[in-house]
């Protein structure tokens, strides 16, 4: 068979989601953002919500999420994305509204906005990228930084006597009456990516069916912040992050 004969639409088994544009991503090699962006694009496309979705982009590495997904976006102040999403969803109830936030954004400066939006049962989805570090500002300690883990602001490792304990936001969210679906996923392997996509799909469907608020945590790597190769970062995540942030559904109201 010639190349021309092979490359035909009917032979296509995989393609880039149409909602992903051709901009070269600014994320570091090994970063999880690109994969999660793709999953969101695929789910929106599969749900046929291309013209009815509004994303809220965060402060931090993913502030430019709007450069990669061809949907309407609002960029929110640090931590305030759930408040921004609350209003858009209430004012446009038939729209799919989601926030995309990192751990510094969601678990630190935006704790109040996150907990209250989830607890009000806003029909939104919060995608929570947890890489246990402040990526964009250069690898400082986050609320999610593991005990003993080094960062530029805890260079000798997180010491609970000085810095307190890592915050498990997803566990907190699962306890809130307003949440419909709370899950923790990852994207370091093909099976993990498939599960994460299913979780995002369920969360988005809940948002549209008025079931309440949804939180999808994705435990992620930050090769640059962790000062590791992408391969090492994935391994380190499995060995150190997963025991403290165990994967799986924490709440599913069905």
């Amino acid at each position, binding site marked *: 068979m010639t190349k021309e004969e092979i490359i035909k639409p009917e032979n296509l088994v995989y393609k880039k989601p149409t909602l992903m544009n051709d901009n070269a991503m600014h994320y570091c090699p090994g970063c999880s953002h690109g994969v999660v962006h793709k999953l969101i694009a695929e789910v929106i496309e599969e749900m046929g919500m291309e013209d009815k979705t509004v994303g809220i982009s965060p402060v931090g590495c993913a502030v430019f999420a709007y450069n990669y997904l*061809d949907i309407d976006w*609002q960029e929110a102040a640090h931590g305030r994305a759930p*408040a*921004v999403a609350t*209003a858009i969803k*209430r004012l*446009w109830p038939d729209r799919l509204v989601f926030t995309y936030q990192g751990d510094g954004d969601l678990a630190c400066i935006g704790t109040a906005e996150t907990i*209250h939006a989830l607890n009000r049962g806003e029909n939104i989805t919060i995608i929570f990228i947890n890489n246990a570090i402040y990526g964009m500002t250069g690898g400082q300690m986050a609320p999610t930084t593991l005990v003993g883990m080094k960062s530029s602001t805890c260079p000798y490792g997180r010491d609970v006597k000085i810095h307190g304990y890592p915050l498990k936001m997803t566990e907190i969210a699962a306890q809130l009456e307003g949440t419909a679906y709370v899950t923790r996923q990852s994207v370091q392997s093909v099976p993990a990516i498939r599960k994460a996509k299913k979780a995002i799909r369920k969360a988005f469907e809940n948002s549209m069916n008025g079931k309440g608020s949804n939180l999808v945590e994705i435990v992620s790597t930050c090769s640059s912040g962790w000062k590791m190769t992408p391969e090492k970062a994935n391994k380190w995540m499995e060995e150190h992050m997963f025991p403290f942030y165990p994967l799986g559904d924490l709440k599913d109201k069905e």
Partner: protein
Amino acid sequence: MAEEVVLMKGNEAIAQAAIRCGADGYFGYPITPQSEVLETLAELKPWETTGMVVLQAESEVAAINMVYGGAGSGKMVMTSSSSPGVSLKQEGISYIAGAELPCLIVNVMRGGPGLGTIQPSQADYFQTVKGGGHGDYKLIALAPASVQEMTDFVALGFELAFKYRNPAIILADGVIGQMMEKVVLPAQKARRTEAEILEQCPWATTGKAKGRKPNIITSLELKPEAMEINNLRFQAKYRKIEENEVRFEEINCEDAEYLIIAFGSMARIGQKAMELAREQGIKVGILRPITLWPFPTKAIASYADKVKGMLVTELNAGQMIEDVRLAVNGKIKVEHFGRLGGIVPDPDEIVTALKETIIK
């Protein structure tokens, strides 16, 4: 709801006017002396009549960011608060100004700094007209002096906000928020339909309709050259607003030898002081800025050649006086009279201050 005449508080008038002008959403947090805005909305349940969304947020910070979200999606949204609450909102206000979105903010001022007092004040003048949040931006600032104006400025604020895609603020004080007066409420206006919003706000994040590029609401621009262009665009817009939207009121200024310059409740007290002074043979007029920004600089400057002096009366330690002095540019004497900490002066205190500082 047809036009009707009622007796109500300034804060209640804000709520009534918001519903009647067809607002889509109110997001707020209770704080004295403006809690009646949210309370009145909760009592009137506009979500059952006009479909207006009313939500008590978890904080002022959340409330203003809800306004940011709603405004970005093309809806007519507002918030209200009082001084310490408005300080918390400054982050969001800067973002809204930076993203060039229309919205209405109401500040019913109380005494400060800090937790201060719940009594009336005008000490947030600087915060309102000189910045407040970070960056070079301006708010269209309307200063009502009556419950009627509390009503009328809601629709006017929204109109100007949408005309220029810029946040507008009603800067009232506790007196205007709490006092009861006769007020003519406007007839109910229909909220804009989805089709109207899509047509009027093609920039809004309403979901990317087929065939158009994604709408992105942001105030971020990492390239300094591009950020400078953004800022130059903002400044050009501000100059246009300064040209077109200055509003002020003049009473007895034609033959005046002295002017009282005051806004909000102090203009009402100043009017009585003017009457008392005229009874004593002192020719006093009063000029009341209605827009604090854009400031009636030209009008005030024009009186520098006609009157002997100006007394700026404010419920603060002297804030608007700086803008009056800039307008007059040293040509005549401009002095300040103010009471602090939530004390509202009697008209005769103003007459005394006029005699002692300007006429003497």
